[in-house]
């Protein structure tokens, strides 16, 4: 059965996007972002998401917040509840008031995590079946998981992320449907690997170099996969499972360590579309 979510996304145009600080191993300030190309690539992503049958809502970009484009980190959506992120790095904390304002304006309830934990939203928390799989170490605290679970009423399976290059869960794990997911155990500790193994009946296990091409950072819309790259072995397996693959060029965003999943925040997690707050 296809994913019950992934048909409505929040995105933010890259009007003020750039690599102006370095908070992950992919970011290098000396690398110049081609702003026009970035806008072109982002627009293309919006178009293919729409073509695949999903709805895109827009968050306005803000000067001085280059990473606001990576809406996946805004927070955790669960039904009509939005739990805003608590960014580990001060550079990104300015994004939260704008994220919260959007969700409030669009009818979501907002409940906050305790002040003393870090948690970077859907970047580290992805639904699989009846639970959230949540990563911790580089950007989110293990402690935040208990708070996410209690606020959303959804059990959390914690996975320790061990590779700083794959610093968010959504670079190592990509739910495909109710039985399958892309998994990069090279970026997890043994306990986390065991936990995911228990949870996912048919994992597509990625090699480290495949994971480092950000293949797990794909957007899945029903049977369509929008991928930043598609190593042949992975592509063959996905096609065998009946997925249509579209590789979307996102070279400018990769300079900041982000792929298609990072640029999107699923708004229909944890509830049927009908229960969703109305778009204004």
């Amino acid at each position, binding site marked *: 059965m296809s994913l019950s979510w992934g048909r409505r996304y929040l995105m933010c145009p890259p009007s003020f996007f750039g690599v102006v600080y370095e908070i992950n191993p992919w970011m290098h300030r000396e690398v110049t972002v081609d702003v026009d190309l970035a806008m072109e690539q982002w627009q293309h992503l919006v178009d293919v998401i729409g073509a695949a049958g999903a709805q895109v809502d827009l968050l306005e970009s803000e000067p001085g917040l280059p990473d606001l484009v990576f809406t996946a980190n805004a927070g955790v959506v669960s039904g009509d509840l939005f739990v805003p992120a608590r960014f580990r790095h001060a550079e990104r904390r300015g994004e939260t008031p704008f994220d919260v304002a959007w969700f409030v304006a669009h009818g979501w309830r907002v409940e906050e995590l305790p002040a003393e934990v870090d948690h970077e939203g859907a970047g580290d928390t992805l639904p699989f079946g009846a639970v959230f799989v949540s990563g911790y170490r580089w950007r989110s605290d293990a402690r935040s998981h*208990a708070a996410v679970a209690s606020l959303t009423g959804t059990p959390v399976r914690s996975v*320790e992320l061990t590779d700083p290059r794959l610093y968010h869960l959504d670079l190592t794990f990509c739910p495909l449907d109710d039985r399958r997911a892309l998994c990069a155990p090279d970026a997890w500790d043994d*306990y986390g690997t065991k*936990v995911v193994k228990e949870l996912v009946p048919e994992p597509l296990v990625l090699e480290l170099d495949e994971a480092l091409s950000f293949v797990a950072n794909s957007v899945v819309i029903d049977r369509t996969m929008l991928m930043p790259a598609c190593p042949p072995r992975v592509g063959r397996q996905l096609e065998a499972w009946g997925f249509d693959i579209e590789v979307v060029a996102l070279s400018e965003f990769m300079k900041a360590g982000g792929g298609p999943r990072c640029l999107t925040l699923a708004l229909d997690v944890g509830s049927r579309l009908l229960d969703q707050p109305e778009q204004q």
Partner: protein
Amino acid sequence: MATERIEIEGHIIDSLILAKVLDLIVAAGADYQVVAVDIGRTQNDPSRVVLDVSALDDDSLSALLETVQVHGANRLAERDAVLVACDRDGVLPEGFYSTTNLPTSVRLDGRWHPVVNPEMDCGLIAGGDEVRTVPMHRVRAGDEVVVGYGGVRVEAPSKARGVTFEFMSSEVSSEKPKALLVSQVADRLRAARAQGTKILVVAGPAVVHTGAAPPLATLVREGWVDLLFAGNGFATHDMESNVLGTSLGVSIDAGLPIEHGHSNHLRVINEIRRRGSIAQAVADGYVTGGVMYECVRRGLPFVLGGSVRDDGPLPDVYADVVAAVDAMRENIAGVGVALMLASTLHAIATGNILPAGVETFCVDINQAVVTKLADRGSHQALGIVTDVGLFVRDLTEQLCPR
């Protein structure tokens, strides 16, 4: 040994976080004790586990805590104990922490200090980087006393393991084979002596009346007793039986009252008062045997506590009961085993001041007496309901075979 309490919360069972944290603790060569476990009933319910983590020293403990903190295990939000200065001598501040006899630690400046001398029904005084129990009457104005329950941790009494106290499963022994109990008590005394801990005997006058004074004197002579607590009666009758052959006027040998025997103990007390002390009576050759004699000969510390019904009393008796208990306190450091022999008053007074870890055997013909001690919070007390005369003789035969 450094200990810190941590807490892990969430879906820590299914996420294997608990397993990971426990593995990390063990892998670091540290130890843990589970303080509280609350496992979620369904997979939706979170679980919570509280652990006391112990490592060799503060440094390795902080390193370990840093490691497990990454996995969500946090120091329990604990605060330092609150200290309030006494405003007058002999009076604890309002809301003072009232102690148990269990091992206790107090948190000050973020560090846990074990209480040096656990004793029940006392206050806790912090000073000079240590925390001590102090009975109410001994506090002085300005002493910093722990107030409230915050920052105080009490170790639950652990179930004795292995050979230690295996036979303590039932508290009172009226229907147990006595020979077995006696040999097990003998084993504990041997173990105490081998470990270099002290053996304390608390004796009541019935020890003398039942003819157990000579074997008890043998135990003292042979080094099986390190400390004696008793009252005016025990010491008096012990010396009366040595000097005049009677205990409260009853012939020890014949078991019959002798004429004018009721005044025998008064004459002995009077003679010893004349000489100024029991030690002097021994030096003078007035007392030539018995338990008190052997104590003096061996230089064994003894504390004789007085009471309102005392005759005399003997010059060595503390007429001030508060001073008597203080004198007992001064001597109990290092006691590993306490033998309470047919004594209600002194046994309970002793039970009150002993830390919970001291193995205590309470021998009395009256079941009410032996249960009373355990009821008063002396966790390690075993009651043996039997005639004390037979018990002491059997014990002496086991420890000092002729």
